[in-house]
C-alpha cells in the first residue's frame, strides 16, 4: 500500500509551513523524517494521517485520492501524534477496545490486552488514565495506533516520554509491522533513538522534503 503526498502546501494565517512538499511511503519501508523545530514535520504528518487538510496538493493511497476513500484510508493508517488521542476518563483497555471495535476488529479486547502487556502496562489495564505519566500515556497512545495492524504507520515523535524498555518494545513492534509489509513514517528530531531497519531518511527544509539518505 503506497501513500503518496505531492506538492502539499499548508499555511497557518500568513505563515507558509509547507511549500510543495512531496513524499511517498512504499510498502515494507521504515522512513525517518527529521527537521528542526517548526519546520513543518508535525503538519506534514497530520496531513498524511488525514487529521489535517492541505491547502493545495494531492494525497493518494494506492493511486486513489484519500478524500474520496476517507473511511478506508483511515482504517489503513495508524497515527500517533503529540496529543495522546485518547479518552482520559476511560481505562487503557476500554480506550483500545472502543477504538478497535469501531475500526472493525472483532477480538479488539484480547489484542489490546496483549499489546498493552508488551508495553508493560498489564497492571494498569483497568485504571482511568487521568493520573498517568507522560510515558505511560505515550505507551497507550502507541498501542492505539498499532492495534488495527495498519498498513501505514505515521508516528510523530513516538519516542517522546518513553524509557529504554518502552523504546525497545516500540522498535520490536516496528520491525514486526515491517515484516507484515506495512510502511512506517517516524517523525523525530531526536538523534538519541536509533530507529531500527531504516530504509530512508528525509528532512524538511524550507517547507519541502529533501531525501538525505
Amino acid at each position, binding site marked *: 500500500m503506497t501513500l503518496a503526498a505531492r506538492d502539499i502546501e499548508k499555511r497557518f494565517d500568513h505563515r507558509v509551513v509547507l511549500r510543495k512538499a512531496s513524499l511517498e511511503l512504499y510498502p515494507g519501508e521504515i522512513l525517518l523524517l527529521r527537521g528542526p523545530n517548526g519546520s513543518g514535520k508535525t503538519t506534514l504528518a497530520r496531513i498524511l*494521517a*488525514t*487529521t*489535517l*487538510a492541505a491547502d493545495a496538493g494531492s494525497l493518494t493511497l494506492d493511486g486513489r485520492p484519500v478524500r474520496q476513500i*476517507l*473511511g*478506508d*484510508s*483511515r*482504517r489503513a*493508517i495508524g*497515527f500517533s*501524534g503529540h*496529543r*495522546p*488521542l*485518547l*479518552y*482520559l*476518563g*476511560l481505562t487503557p483497555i*476500554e480506550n483500545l477496545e*472502543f*477504538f478497535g*471495535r*469501531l*475500526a472493525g476488529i472483532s477480538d479488539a479486547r484480547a489484542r489490546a490486552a496483549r499489546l498493552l502487556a508488551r508495553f508493560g502496562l498489564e497492571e494498569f489495564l483497568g485504571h*482511568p488514565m487521568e493520573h498517568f505519566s507522560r510515558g505511560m500515556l505515550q505507551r497507550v497512545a502507541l498501542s*492505539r495506533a498499532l492495534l488495527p495492524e495498519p498498513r501505514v504507520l505515521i508516528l510523530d515523535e513516538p519516542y517522546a516520554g518513553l524509557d529504554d524498555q518502552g523504546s525497545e518494545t516500540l522498535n520490536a513492534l516496528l520491525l514486526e509491522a515491517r515484516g507484515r509489509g506495512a510502511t512506517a513514517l517516524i517523525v523525530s528530531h531526536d538523534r538519541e533513538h536509533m530507529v531500527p531497519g531504516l530504509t530512508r531518511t528525509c528532512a524538511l527544509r524550507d517547507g519541502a522534503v529533501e531525501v538525505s539518505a
Partner: protein
Amino acid sequence: MTALRVLAKDLKLHARDARFLATLSLFSLSLVLILSVAFGPLFRDPAREASATLWAALFFAGVLGLTRALDLESESGGGEALRLTGADPFSVYAGKAMANLLLMGALWVLLLPCASVFFDIGSLRVFPALAGVAVLALIGYAAWGTLFAALARGLKARELLLSILLFPTLLPLWIGAVKLTHSLWAEGSIDAVRDWVKVMVVVDVLGIALAAWLYETIQEAGE
C-alpha cells in the same frame, strides 16, 4: 452498533465525572428555585409559570451538558482518534445525540418533581403525556445541540457560539414544550394546543436531517 458504542462511551465518561454531574444538577435546581421564588409566593398562573421555569432551566442547563460533551472529545484528542477509526460519521453523531438526549432526560426527571413541588402543581395522571412532550422536545434539543456543538468545536468562545446558535433555533421547540406542558398541568390534555406537536416534530426532523447532510462536512471542516 457504532452509535451504541459511542453512546455507551459517552455515558460512561459522564457517569465517572461526579463533579460535572453535581454542577449540572445544582445549576439546574438553582434555576428552578430562583425562578419559583421570583414568581412567588402567590402564583397567578402556577401551571404556566412552572412549565416556563422547567423548560427554561432545562434548556439553559443543557448547554452545560453539550459543552462538557464537547470538552470530553477535545481535551486529549479522543474525538480526533474517533474520526481516525473511519467510523461512519452519522453513526457517531447518532451515538453522541443519544447520549445528550439521555443526559437531558435524566435532568428532566430530576427537575419535574422539583417544579411540581415548588409551584404546587401537577398530578401523576398526566405524567405519561408529560414524558411524551419531554421526548419530543429533548430529541430536537439533542439533535440540534449535537450538531451545533460539532460546529463550535475548537473555538475559544464555543459556549457563547453554542448559545447564540442554539436558543434562536430552538425557540419553536421551547414555546411548544411550554405550551404543551402548561396545557397538561392546567387542563389535563393538549387538545387546545395540539398543533404545537406538529411544529415540534418538524423541528426534530429538520435537526436530524440537517445532521445527516452536514455532520461529516462540519467534522472535517473543523481541522
